[in-house]
């Protein structure tokens, strides 16, 4: 009985497995693209919003137009090989190694999240794969770029993201909208710690008073004490360097506690469509990390296609950047007209790309212009501050209650 | 009351791993009869009761209650059949109250209908338990706990009641009281199979007795006859007493 049960569970899996092989075999001479990122583990939630749908969208878009243009005039479709790294860096390393040596992938997409991507960086480097990172947010981009000649960064540095928040606050204070009191909260994970460490001195330097400063561990079940403490400090602005689950929890608690602030900022997860889906219009005025030029045609077209192909909306920050990073790869391959990785890497370094995020050019292997702060305005998350003066920024507004 | 309801076992063999505890034991108990099994420590008395109650598996032999075979039944089915055990150390539920313990005794299908009736019977046999109904069993004295244990077994409306060393740890005074109540229980028509070390006092209330030594029955007789038999003393203290034939 027991064994039978197991077979019953295994059978559909085996079938599903063999089916993907079949459908792949029909395509002629595809370019193999490896993707190793989290489908399980703590990072899976974020990857399921930002990473995997874009992989799917990209594959669909490229193949829909017949594939990538080669120098010899032919078109080659792309085929994605996906692995789950279970949010385990050792598994990321193995998956990328497997892609490079076993599957002989032509190119490999950078893994999702800082730690996992950096774990894979030496492997990309050793096998000579260009690595266009998106969700790798660190202040070490310069060191890393010097160390690995094939690594690229697109989403920004922690210190700059933090500075963006501070600038937005300064702007509002100068407009006379808010006072000096800031409540600062962060998730005690590398991301939150780095941002808080950068934001604290920056805020003080600009004359802000940090009236409440707490961190909480990843996976904290009840953030009520944090929110209550923040509310009790009577801040003008609430800044939380948070991850998706706590972004949601903090927003909900702010409504419950009726946190009366002019600026409410939460980090990762704020630009997620599900954020709006959950809180509706109450989030108008909420600021968050990143942002897009929501009014640009490029983004709106992308948004539409994303919805059509993947059945879900993209977020208003990393999603589009993620897709843009794939476009970089796509245009570089077509520019070279082949799958010579060294040539593609050089092409990425020395050319300009037209992406959903606008025109991109890598300087010192880094994109120097990116959104740092966005804000929910009229049901859309719009960029309000950027590094490198991106077009389409809207003026920040203050938050008027939670109704 | 016919012998149909009696307990009988034949050639029961029990071993714990390599250690043989019973080497083929046959015992009978009729309803309304009080039978005592005597023997020194380690003779296999408890093993016999535990095997009958289904707590330890028997390797060989046949056990019957009336016409129903008991061999290899799980403990709860044996109780359901009408054979109840008061184990050594009482085995009451220390964290539950007296009345909860008693009511649990009537958990079996056969006993549910007569629960109130049996409860009244137990309370009339052990009036002390009435005033202690709500007390947590663990906090009572040894003698009272023993009463709870016996009462609980009686609540299952058994045909045959087995008791394993009920006098253990009781003062002489309490022991006498206990034996008097056992006689009263027997008089209600139950068969009782009693394992006891206290040979003289148990024989005084018993109808018949078996003498168990080293996992074997070495003698059986009417209680009065055993009381005078030097083999009994021999079984406990060894020595010069002549071994009794069969």
């Amino acid at each position: 009985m027991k064994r039978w049960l197991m077979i019953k569970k295994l059978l559909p899996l085996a079938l599903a497995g063999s089916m993907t092989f079949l459908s792949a075999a029909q395509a002629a001479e595809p370019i193999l693209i490896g993707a190793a990122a989290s489908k399980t583990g703590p990072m899976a939630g974020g990857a399921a919003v930002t990473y995997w749908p874009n992989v799917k969208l990209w594959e669909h878009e490229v193949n829909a137009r017949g594939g990538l243009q080669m120098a010899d005039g032919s078109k080659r479709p792309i085929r994605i090989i996906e692995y789950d790294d279970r949010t385990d860096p050792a598994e990321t390393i193995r998956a990328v190694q497997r892609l490079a040596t076993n599957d002989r992938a032509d190119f490999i997409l950078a893994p999702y999240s800082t730690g996992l991507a950096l774990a894979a960086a030496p492997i990309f480097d050793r096998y000579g794969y260009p690595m266009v990172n998106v969700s790798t947010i660190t202040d070490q981009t310069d060191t890393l770029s010097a160390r690995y000649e094939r690594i690229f960064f697109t989403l920004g540095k922690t210190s700059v993201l933090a500075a963006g928040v501070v600038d937005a606050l300064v702007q509002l204070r100068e407009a006379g909208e808010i006072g000096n009191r800031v409540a600062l909260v962060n998730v005690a994970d590398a991301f939150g710690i780095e941002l808080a460490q950068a934001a604290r001195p920056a805020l003080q330097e600009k004359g802000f008073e940090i009236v409440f400063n707490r961190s909480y561990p990843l996976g904290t079940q009840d953030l009520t004490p944090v929110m209550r403490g923040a509310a009790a400090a009577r801040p003008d602005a609430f800044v939380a360097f948070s991850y998706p689950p706590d972004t949601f929890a903090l927003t909900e608690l702010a409504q419950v506690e009726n946190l009366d602030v002019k600026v409410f900022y939460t980090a990762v997860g704020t630009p997620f469509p599900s954020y709006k889906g959950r809180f509706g219009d109450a989030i108008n005025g909420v600021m968050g990390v990143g942002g897009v030029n929501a009014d640009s045609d490029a983004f709106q077209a992308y948004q539409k296609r994303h919805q059509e192909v993947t059945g879900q909306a993209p977020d208003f920050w990393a999603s589009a950047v993620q897709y843009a990073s794939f476009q970089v790869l796509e245009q570089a391959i077509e520019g070279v007209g082949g799958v010579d990785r060294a040539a593609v890497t050089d092409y990425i370094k020395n050319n300009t790309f037209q992406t959903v995020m606008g025109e991109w050019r890598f300087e010192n292997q880094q994109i120097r212009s990116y959104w740092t702060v966005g804000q929910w305005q009229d049901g859309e998350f719009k960029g309000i501050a950027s590094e490198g003066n991106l077009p389409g920024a809207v003026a920040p507004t203050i938050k008027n209650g939670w109704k | 009351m016919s012998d149909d309801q009696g307990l009988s076992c034949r050639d029961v063999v029990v071993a714990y791993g390599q250690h043989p505890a019973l080497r083929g034991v046959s015992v009978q108990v009729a309803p309304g009869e009080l039978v005592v099994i005597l023997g020194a420590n380690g003779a296999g008395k408890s093993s016999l009761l535990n095997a009958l109650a289904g707590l330890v598996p028997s390797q060989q032999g046949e056990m019957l209650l009336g016409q129903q075979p008991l061999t290899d039944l799980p403990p709860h089915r044996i109780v359901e059949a009408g054979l109840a055990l008061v184990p050594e150390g009482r085995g009451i539920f220390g964290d539950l109250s007296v009345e909860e313990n008693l009511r649990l005794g009537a958990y079996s299908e056969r006993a549910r209908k007569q629960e109130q009736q049996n409860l009244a019977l137990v309370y009339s046999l052990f009036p002390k338990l009435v005033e202690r109904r709500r007390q947590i069993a663990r906090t009572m004295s040894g003698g009272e706990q023993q009463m709870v244990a016996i009462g609980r077994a009686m609540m299952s409306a058994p045909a045959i009641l087995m008791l394993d060393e009920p006098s253990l740890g009781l003062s002489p005074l309490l022991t006498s009281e206990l034996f008097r109540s056992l006689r009263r229980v027997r008089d209600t028509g139950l068969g009782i199979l009693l394992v006891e070390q206290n040979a003289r006092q148990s024989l005084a209330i018993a109808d018949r007795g078996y003498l168990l030594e080293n996992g074997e029955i070495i003698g059986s007789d009417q209680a009065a006859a055993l009381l005078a038999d030097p083999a009994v003393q021999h079984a406990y203290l060894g020595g010069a007493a002549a071994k009794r034939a069969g």
Partner: protein
Amino acid sequence: MKQQELIRLVLVALVFGLLALLPLIPANDRLMALAVPIAMYAVLATSWSLFSGPTHYISLATAAFYGVGAYTLANGLEVFSYPLLLLMAALLGGGLAALVGMTTLRLSGVYFVIFTLGLAELIRQLVTWYQNNFTGSRGSYVFTDITEAQIYWQLLGLLALVFLLGWLINRSRLGFAIRIIGNDELVARHSGINTARTKVLLFILSGAFAAVVGAVMAPRFVYVEPSMAFSPQLSFMVVVMALLGGVHRLWGPLLGVVPFAIVWELIAANFPGQTVLFMGLAFLVVVYFIPQGVAGVLEQQLHKIRQRRGG
């Protein structure tokens, strides 16, 4: 007897020597991708069963020690020399094991399991909190020039060391004492064995090894984060592999690590979406069908063959 042991020793040394040549094979990438995790889990599972095998204490604290080791290296890399850091990792891991062992080894099995399960989480929280509030460290970057092959060699060396130590312990009074304890702690006490000290000593040993492995592996990850260094999955994998192999022999865990790692690789490569499901199923197969471990099954078979030959 003596000669047989000598032959065995030479053979083992030979095998290790051959294994050490592995990174020199050209185009060895696929091999190395498999060899490094195998070597890592071999050290962890073997050292785990030095303690848990004879005592039957299921320790889920491997990740705690591993994480301590990884952090020791990550934080000390700019201050101390690499060998010194490995030594420090061993000392810290051993010290932590001593502390945990002394307080919790007198608890009964289940409590010990749950405490060790929580330990990695506890240390992770404390490290995070400390980092957040005091060092202000922005994650921990490990920039070294240590190559994959060097990591592999180090792990291989550690494995040889575990085997050597395990072999020595098995021949020593300490090993005899721990086997007696595992069989019957009461008898052990009544035979004059200091059971608490013996158990703690072996726990320290397994903790120290796990910490050194953590330190050795850290350079591979470039970036050390609490959630990764103290990943509970690591602890569980070690337990499954060791149990699968069999913990009653020194070489038992190895029999679990190698096939498990290979099967795992196959699963991860062919069913990328269902790895967790398959890990669970593998776990269940071990518990239900090979509770004695591969080593146990193997020995039974060998015994049968011998018996058949013998008559």
